């Protein structure tokens, strides 16, 4: 009996956010006494296998078939289930990324497992906390099934750190292929900035930015801070920024050191995606905007004046500190 963590790959490398699932496995390991294994499915690079073998796992299962080069839930499910069965997994865990959300319920269905989505806390081996109602409620849920499947909210668990000991590496063959689905392409949003979920500074824009032509004001501030750009749902719905910029209950959850909300009113769905940020700045001309209630520093001002001024002054400060 053991715990299985499904790591996520991006261009052959381990996605840092998926290391939060390893931390969850460590906590479960402490509570249950079970050891954990990790799975790399797809096309892991040698360095990814090396990295995975230093995460304190008992074993690393590597499954790199040609038909798994591109992710599909149907084919990855076959691989995860095979590894889960091989390793006697009582828990199967991944981060609640778009891949984890797509894949894990399918895995749970195949294993006949109960599943808790986007958990934020491990209470014991069968009890977990998770958000409901767009983060306005925290529910304590219990999984009664023999096998349990979990996705973890990436911001709720630290990323597991490298350990010096090395895990055994096992190759796993999977020949079964699901025929009804074909990956066509990934139209990646190109950006030189850090990923939203990984960035230590996030600058988000809301409806107050008024139009796509004004987003550069926020971009300039973002780049001075070396951060990532995010958006409220209104901005994404209007097509001013691509969908994967959305921060909120139905978008991404972020918890950076510094979160700067520009022209964002602070609807509960948005707040659910950023409320664990360490320090929140809000700039909005409406003094009644709910975002101010959760801001550590709120500035009631016209963002079209305040933001360029802030950018200029931070730029100077940065130049000074860089000497």
């Amino acid at each position, binding site marked *: 009996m053991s715990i299985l963590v499904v790591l996520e790959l991006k261009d052959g490398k381990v996605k840092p956010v998926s290391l939060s699932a390893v931390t969850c496995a460590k906590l479960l390991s402490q509570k249950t006494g079970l050891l954990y294994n990790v799975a790399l499915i797809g096309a892991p690079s040698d360095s990814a296998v090396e990295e995975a073998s230093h995460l304190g796992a008992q074993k690393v299962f590597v499954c790199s078939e040609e038909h798994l080069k591109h992710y599909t839930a149907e084919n990855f499910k076959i691989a995860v289930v095979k590894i889960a069965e091989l390793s006697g997994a009582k828990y199967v865990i991944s981060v609640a990324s778009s891949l984890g959300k797509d894949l894990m319920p399918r895995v749970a269905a195949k294993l006949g497992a109960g599943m808790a989505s986007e958990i934020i806390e491990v209470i014991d081996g069968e009890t977990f906390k998770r958000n409901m109602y767009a983060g306005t409620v925290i529910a304590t849920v219990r*999984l009664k099934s023999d096998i349990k499947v979990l996705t973890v909210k990436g911001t709720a668990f630290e990323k597991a750190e490298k350990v010096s000991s090395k895990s055994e590496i096992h190759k796993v063959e999977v020949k079964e292929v699901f025929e009804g*689905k074909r990956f*066509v392409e990934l139209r990646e949003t190109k950006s030189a900035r850090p990923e939203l979920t990984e960035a230590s500074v996030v600058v988000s824009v809301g409806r107050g930015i008024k139009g796509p032509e004004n987003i550069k004001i926020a971009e300039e501030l973002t780049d001075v801070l070396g951060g990532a750009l995010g958006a409220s749902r209104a901005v994404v719905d209007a097509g001013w920024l*691509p969908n994967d910029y959305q921060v909120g209950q*139905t978008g991404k959850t972020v918890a950076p050191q510094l979160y700067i909300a520009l022209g964002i009113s602070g609807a509960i769905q948005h707040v659910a995606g950023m409320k664990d940020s360490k320090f*929140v700045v809000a700039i909005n001309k409406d003094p009644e905007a709910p975002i101010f209630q959760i*801001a550590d520093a709120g500035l009631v001002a016209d963002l079209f004046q305040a933001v360029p001024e802030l950018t200029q002054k931070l730029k100077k400060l940065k130049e000074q500190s860089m000497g």
Partner: protein
Amino acid sequence: MKILVTAKRTPDPYSKIKLKPDGSGIDTSNIKFVINSFDEIAIEEGLRKKEKFGGEVVVVSIGTQECVEQIRTALAMGADRGILVDTGGRYLDQLGVAKILARIVEDEKPDLVILGKQAIDDDANQVSQILAELLGWPQATFASKVDIDLNSKKAVVEREVDGGIEVDEVSLPAVISADLRLNQPRYASLPGIMKARQKPLKTVKIEDLKVDVSPSVEVLKFEAPPQRQGGKKVKDVDELIQALKESKVLPF
């Protein structure tokens, strides 16, 4: 083509959610119930596909008799008939819901099932994927665009994923889950509402489906999240920079 869509009864997304004092659930006394926002998008997509290709849209809701309201709304939008699975108020987990839907799919044999990607109450985001697995069908979750080719019996689906948009091709029958930007749902028209009253609505008792829906996921209690302490204001940009420096969150 025949399309099955779902209409979960959930609180209006703009209603204020309050907990019962004992934490056993939410206080529903002052809440307006509507169709789950994501299901509404799924229903709209079903209607658009029917308008393009002909066929039938069947709407399913699982819950108490109160869900008739949500089915009627979907019928008023343009769905052709409704099925209510009357649970008598018993609690179901996601696997239970998916098993019931799979059972209905066996009877109805649709070419496509479209559901909301998640319900705005439990925010689980599981049922579409579980249903696809139970049926052995391909899934296309978080859809923002669905193009169907009836000749090849395939759908090309654009999906909202972390890195951008992923495009997948699925063979029909398939399960699709709707994301926010798939479409803008229509409002029910007055003639639509009138017509909806005449449309067939069948009630099925959960016991009669002979599906094991004993839950493996239980909700033990609900609580309010810790409130973030905020509310501090600064008067200008200089004060803001001072606050940033003091809190040591600047990367330089």
